[in-house]
Every structure is written in C-alpha cells, then in structure tokens.
C-alpha cells in the first residue's frame, strides 16, 4: 500500500518534472493541442448553433390546409385545435375567409381584382408549420394522414418539393456536421499524437536509459501518459478560454449578419457541461496521443 503511494508520488513527480525539464517541447505540445481544440471547439459552437440556422431556413415551410365552405367559426377553431394536436405539428394559425380576403387585397393588383367582386370567393385555411425536428418527408406524411382523416378539410397545399429539399438540406447539414466533426477530431488526434510522438522522439534517450536502469514499463510509460493527459487538459482550457473571449468579442459585432442566419435564435456559448467535455476531450486527446506515440515507438 505504502509502496504504491510512494510509486504514485514518484510517477506524478516524474510527469511534472518531465513537463518542466522539457518545457519547450511541452509548451509546443500544449499549444498544438490548444490550436487543434480551438478548431474543434469553434466548429462545435457552429454546430451547437446550427439548429437555429436550420430553423431559420425552415420557417417559411408552411402547409396550408384549405377548409370546406360553410363551416362555422366554432367548427373551424375545433379543426385548428385538432390539427395542433397532431404530433408533428408546431403551430397552427386559422386564416378566416375575411383574413384571406384582406391578405389578398394587400397583394399587388389584388385590390383591382377584387373591385368588381361581390362576396368572398376565398376559402378559409389553416396555416400549419411543422415542429422543426419533424420537417421531414416522414413528418409531412404523418400530417397528411392526420389531415386526411379530418372532415372539413377541402384540400392541402404544401411544397412537397420544398419540404423534401429542406429535409435533405437539413440532414445534409447535420451529416456533414458530424462528418466534418469526425474529420476534425481525427485530424486533431493525428496532429496531437504526431506532436507528442515527436516530443517522445526528443526524449527517447531518457526513456531508454530509464529502461536500462531497471524501470518497469509502467514506470517509464505512466509519467509520459500522465504528461500527455495533462498537456491535453491544459490545451483544452486554453482553447476554451480563447473561444470564450472570441465568442464574446465577435458575436456583438456580427449580430446583424448572424440574425439573418439564425433568425431570432440567440447565438449561445457552451454550457458548463459542454465546456467540461471540451477540456476532458483535450485530456483524452493527450492521453490517446501519447498512447499512440508510445505504441509507435516500440513497434
């Protein structure tokens, strides 16, 4: 027990001493990890805020269900209510015949067209928007089925193409987000492990001498792995700091442009849990990197 504690103390001391004695190499490793995580983190920030972006693109996606003539106001409201209970539906707005007429009148040439007219040929309708996460052909299918079963709905008009295009685009954005994230993570891992490997290269002699003096594999490797993990964590903290500063410096400046992309979703920074993930991601990268380096070293 005591011996384990002593050995642990030696290993930790050894790791710290390693970082201190090869301060330049350590600093370089930390900087590299920080830069790599900065890229990942910036990317993650975009992804975190991407939902807002997608919603923005999807907000024009509106399905119009024209109602049959001759429904009472109460019946129309009931219909609207029933539609809004469909699982995929976000918001339902009832457009009465009167409102439809006014809308039409506001369009160019509309007033002229209506001049000679008596009565109101325009039908009442429900403007239905889907929940942002259900803006898919499947979601649309569910809606259609639900609407089919409802008496009082004359016809459903919606941009099938639009919604398919949107769904494809959204899933493309998500998939390419994940793909890019994976590529970035892989690139980061490679860069970090390369960096650590080069650092090891510069300290090969040291590890070899330790082995010659009778140090066990653990004794040689543990401090090195610890060092990598620590460097990774420090890199993560640095990256997070720079991201935070960048976010708070840049976002106010870009507000207008961002608003266009994000609609009225506020751009947000990482939550605490996400921040911790970034840092522990850094530590993990450092650990993995040094593991990979060690494995490459002795093969």
């Amino acid at each position, binding site marked *: 027990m005591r011996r384990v504690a*002593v050995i642990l*103390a030696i290993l930790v001391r050894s790791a710290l001493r390693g970082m201190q004695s090869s301060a330049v190499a350590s600093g370089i490793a930390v900087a590299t990890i920080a830069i790599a995580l900065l890229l990942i983190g910036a990317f993650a920030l975009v992804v975190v805020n991407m939902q807002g972006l997608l919603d923005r693109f999807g907000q024009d996606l509106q399905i119009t269900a024209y109602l049959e003539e001759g429904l009472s106001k109460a019946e129309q409201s009931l219909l609207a209510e029933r539609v809004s209970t469909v699982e995929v539906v976000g918001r339902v707005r009832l457009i009465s015949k009167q409102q439809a007429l006014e809308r039409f009148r506001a369009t160019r040439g509309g007033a002229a067209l209506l001049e000679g007219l008596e009565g109101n040929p325009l039908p009442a309708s429900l403007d239905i928007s889907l929940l942002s996460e259900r803006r898919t052909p499947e979601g649309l299918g569910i809606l259609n089925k639900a609407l089919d079963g409802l008496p009082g709905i004359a016809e459903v008009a919606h941009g099938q193409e639009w919604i398919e295009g949107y769904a494809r685009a959204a899933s493309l954005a998500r998939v390419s987000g994940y793909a890019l994230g994976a590529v970035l993570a892989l690139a980061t891992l490679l860069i970090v492990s390369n960096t650590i490997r080069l650092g090891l290269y510069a300290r090969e002699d*040291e590890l070899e*001498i330790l*082995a010659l*003096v009778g*140090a066990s594999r653990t004794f040689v490797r543990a401090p090195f792995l610890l060092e990598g993990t620590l460097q990774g964590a420090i890199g993560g903290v640095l990256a997070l700091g720079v991201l935070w500063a960048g976010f708070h410096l840049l976002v106010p400046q870009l507000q207008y442009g961002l608003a266009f992309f994000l609609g009225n979703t506020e751009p947000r920074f990482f939550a605490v849990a996400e921040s911790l993930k970034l840092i522990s991601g850094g530590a993990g990268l450092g650990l993995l990197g040094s593991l990979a380096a060690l494995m490459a070293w002795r093969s």
Partner: protein
Amino acid sequence: MYHVSKAYVAGAFALQDVSLDVSRGEFVFLTGASGAGKTTLLQLLFAAERPSEGQIVVLGRNIARLRGSAVPALRRRVGVVFQDFKLLRQRTVEENVGVTLDVVGMPRREVRAKVFTMLKQVGLQHRRYHHPVSLSGGEQQRVAIARALVGEPEILLADEPTGNLDPDLSVEIMDLMMSAAMRGTAVLVATHDVGLIERYHKRKLHLDAGRLVEDGPAAGRTE
C-alpha cells in the same frame, strides 16, 4: 544471490563461443582490444542484448529465455556503468543517481539520503544540483558509477569506468568497487588500464575478436 553462473555462447560476430562463470563476491577484469566484445558481453548480462546462440544464467534466471516483462526486475539487481555514461540530461546529478532507487519505489527522503552518501564517496556531493552537461567528463563518469552502486546491486558491470579519470581517482573508484565485491557483489570491470589490472591482481578475462582467450588470475597474484 547464492550462485551466479553464466554458461554463455553468442552468435557469429561480436562474441564467439564464450563460456564463463562468475560467482558471488568475485571481482573480475575484462580486457581485450578495442572492438573485442567487452561491451557486448556486459550487455548480454543485463539483457540489453539477447544472445544469438547459447544460454546465459544470471541470478538464477536464463536471460536467453527471459520474458520482456521480467527484464526490469533483473536489471534492478544489476548495477551498470555504461561506457558512454547514459546520464539523463534533463535531470540533476542527484536525480540521475536517485533514479536507481526511484524505480524500486523507495521513499523520497531515503533516496536523498542514500544518494548524498553515495555522491560523497565519488567526491561529487557539491555538484548534486548540477546537470550532466555542466560536468566534466570525469565527473559524469563518476555520476554513472554512483548510479550503478547506490542500489547495492548483486552484480556490478562496469564498462571502462576509469577512462576519463586521473590515476588517483581511478584507484579510489576501484577501491569502491572492491568493497562492493567484499560485500558479496559480483563485479565485472571492462578496462584497458593496464596499470589498474596490474595493481589489483584479480581474475582477468581476456577477449580477442570475440573469443575468450585467457581466463585466470593475473600473473603475480598476491592474495
């Protein structure tokens, strides 16, 4: 360590068909021209190299068949003074010597005390916070010797341990190694220093181009 025996035959190049046996507490000189195979022989003994042929039994273990994971345990019982010192450049003299004790998990305080005593014996206690680069060649060599001796090894392998030392210091160091042998350590010293060999009249192994051509006490033995 009850008996050290090395029945030893290595492959074609550096050493050829060498057999020898060293027992506990024995002090042996290893001589031979440059490139004769002295370093190679020592390296085989602490499993830095594996023999291409033959068997080596060190401390009851057969090196030729030792698992990789058992090597560190063996090495902790063997002290080695390398011909090129092999000091850790990034660490102080004290840490360099202490590393032998660190690897067996000795508490720090004890390590420092032992290291200090050892450094005093090689006359370097005042240099203990220096780094190897700021030491002279002879000082580095003495650090290497201190590192090999501080763990009170059961076997001491010293490769040209006095090549950078002046005659007076050489004698001091040899005496240090002698007293280790007295305490039961098997000591093997590879050296070119004819003066030393003559002075100590110990068993002498002479290698020539990888073959053991002489094995016996130096002529004019006094003990």
